[in-house]
């Protein structure tokens, strides 16, 4: 049923010019319209309910909860069920890149109770003092999570974040057009597929590919290693169709791209439209990421946000989300409710030997500049 729903949705959305990505379509709209978007917050702020004071310890449910999440990233029933159970109306808004989310928070646009940044972005937001500590007493269901998400390097002990969904970065490929595919980053440098290869338009992600291929850490601060990676990426440039973080879903589906560097769930969306599309995590190692719920510093309804987080950590609720969006759940107890086709899919739940080679991107603080500069030189070359 759910799968059918999703296919229908993809078809409908495709009619508008391409499938939506969790991190996709409105990215540019968001970038172009930061100001416009901010108006939504003003409205949100005006509606603040009186039951909880900002930052106060009120243990009372508010009338409304302002939830800001990635687009296309929730089961259709999750919010209605929560509303029925708790009598709180959820005001749900979407974004499609961490950068948009951060820019909005930084520009002072607040009023949201829950946001869902990605791992490294949590470090950034903590550094910028944009999120606040969570009261885990209100979230007993956090015990349902896998240990590795309870002790994640960016937030050990879930002091600031409760994981939502996780996935990997890898290669989406067309198994019919690329019969000699092997799970290696080398494929993205294969001259036989010149013009049919896409790379993401993400600074750190692009460098991670070259760094993994060279056997270095994707979080290196070594300028010589970054320079070596840059040269490798410059060599790759003539083979590329373009750099894109969203349209590759559509391009994989329409066979305009045969080899795309991309996020797991995005490739699965292309798979729904074109059965020849497959996903692999290269054996040199790759990135893993987890999007986690956080509470902004001046969230009006902190307690309600924590109740909502607890609700999401309920095994059945968590499973329903995975069953709908086809990403892996950080919830261990949810396994028994997740569709076998998802749980047994090595593309979604990778085997242990792959898991061992997955790394998180780390926020490098001032050294981020090394990557920014190198990426500019790559793109301008």
């Amino acid at each position, binding site marked *: 049923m759910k799968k059918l729903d999703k296919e229908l949705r993809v078809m409908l959305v495709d009619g508008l010019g*391409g499938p939506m990505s969790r991190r996709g379509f409105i990215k540019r709209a968001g970038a172009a319209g930061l100001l416009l978007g901010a108006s939504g917050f003003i409205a949100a702020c005006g509606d603040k309910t009186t039951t909880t004071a900002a930052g106060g310890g009120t243990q009372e449910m508010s009338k409304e909860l302002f939830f800001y999440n990635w687009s296309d990233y929730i089961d259709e029933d999750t919010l209605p069920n929560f509303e029925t159970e708790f009598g709180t109306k959820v005001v749900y808004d979407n974004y499609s890149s961490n950068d948009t989310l*951060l820019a909005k928070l930084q520009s002072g646009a607040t009023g949201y109770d829950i946001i869902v940044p990605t791992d490294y972005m949590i470090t950034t937001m903590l550094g910028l003092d944009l999120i606040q500590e969570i009261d885990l007493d209100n979230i007993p269901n956090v015990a349902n999570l896998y240990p590795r998400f309870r002790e994640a390097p960016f937030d050990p002990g879930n002091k600031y974040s409760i994981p939502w969904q996780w996935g990997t970065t890898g290669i989406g490929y067309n198994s019919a057009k690329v019969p000699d595919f092997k799970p290696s980053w080398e494929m993205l440098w294969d001259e036989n597929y010149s013009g049919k290869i896409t790379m993401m338009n993400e600074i750190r992600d692009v460098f991670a590919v070259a760094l993994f291929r060279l056997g270095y850490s994707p979080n290196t601060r070594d300028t010589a290693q970054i320079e070596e990676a840059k040269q490798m990426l410059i060599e790759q*440039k003539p083979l590329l169709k373009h750099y894109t973080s969203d*349209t590759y879903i559509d*391009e994989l589906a*329409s066979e305009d791209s045969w080899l795309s560097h991309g996020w797991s769930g995005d490739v699965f969306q292309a798979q729904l439209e074109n059965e020849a599309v497959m996903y692999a995590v290269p054996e040199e190692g790759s990135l893993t990421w987890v999007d986690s719920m956080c509470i902004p510093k001046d969230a009006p309804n902190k307690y309600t946000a924590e109740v909502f987080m607890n609700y999401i950590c309920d095994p059945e609720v968590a499973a329903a989300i995975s069953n709908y969006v086809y990403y892996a759940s950080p919830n261990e107890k949810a396994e028994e409710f997740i569709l076998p086709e998802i749980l047994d899919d090595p593309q979604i739940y990778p085997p242990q030997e792959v898991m061992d080679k997955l790394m998180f991107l780390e926020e490098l603080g001032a050294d981020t500049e090394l990557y*920014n500069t190198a990426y500019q*030189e790559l793109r301008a070359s």
Partner: protein
Amino acid sequence: MTKPADTGMTEASAPVILGQNSGPLSRAISRLRGHSFAVANLLMAPTMLWLLLFLALPLGVILVYSFGSRGTYGDVIYGFAFDNYLRAFSPIWLPVILRSFLFAGIATALTLAMGYPLAYFIAIYGGRRKSIYLILVMVPFWTSYLIRTYSWIVILRSQGVVNTILQWANIIDNPLDLLNTPFSVILGLTYGFLPFMTLPLYASLEKLDKSLIEAAWDLGASRIWALLTVTIPLSIPGIIAGTLLVFIPAVGDFVTPDLLGGPDTLMIGNVIQQQFLSARDWAYGSALSFSLMAILLIGIFLYVRKVGTENLA
């Protein structure tokens, strides 16, 4: 160049511009004229306030940012240093800036080449269907620019409309690489900005005194010669307005090269966008924006001076 037009416009606008009859409206107008300075200020106030709040103030903020630097987590540290400007004029961006000007220039020339005949046709031969034609020119604006640009992907991609038709007609065997090329970016810019060229050209041609063209013909000028020596010089204000309205946003556009471009079509707008979003170096992005604005302002100044400021009046 501003004498009142003698055809078309006259009947509609006569009661307002001429104070011949002594109706209450014209009396009110002449009374207003007495206080023209105060009235002008009053009329300007909302716009000035708007411009101050939403143009001058944000520009001021960006100017302040541009002298700062990037904090550890991508925040702006205020200061007073020219480092960002030195980086903005670093040689690595030269090819990117030249490419932006080249693409925008070609797109401007193409919109002029297509927009002029179109505006001329509507203004001179539109007759009573003028407003329908004008609405047709503006219809694309009813759809988001993003959606319209996405639809070019559907048209140009390898299994897209163009390639499918060409292959079906046996004109080509393998799909052409139309998308993600300089061609597709220039096409996208041209398509997107065509109305910005057509409308000012139309406004200019529509108020053109047609009897001057007839006089040129009567005096023995060929059609082409009359076009070159009478019509086009008289429509220079429209040409200037149109080229500026197309060229300036096209130089800084980032959506079109992002969606339709390839690895080698990076434009300066993309670079600036990248600084504000993924690189999170707002100070550098601000300096790049100001540098681009400075270059454009100097260019516009020289251009308008060359073509003749008095024509803009």
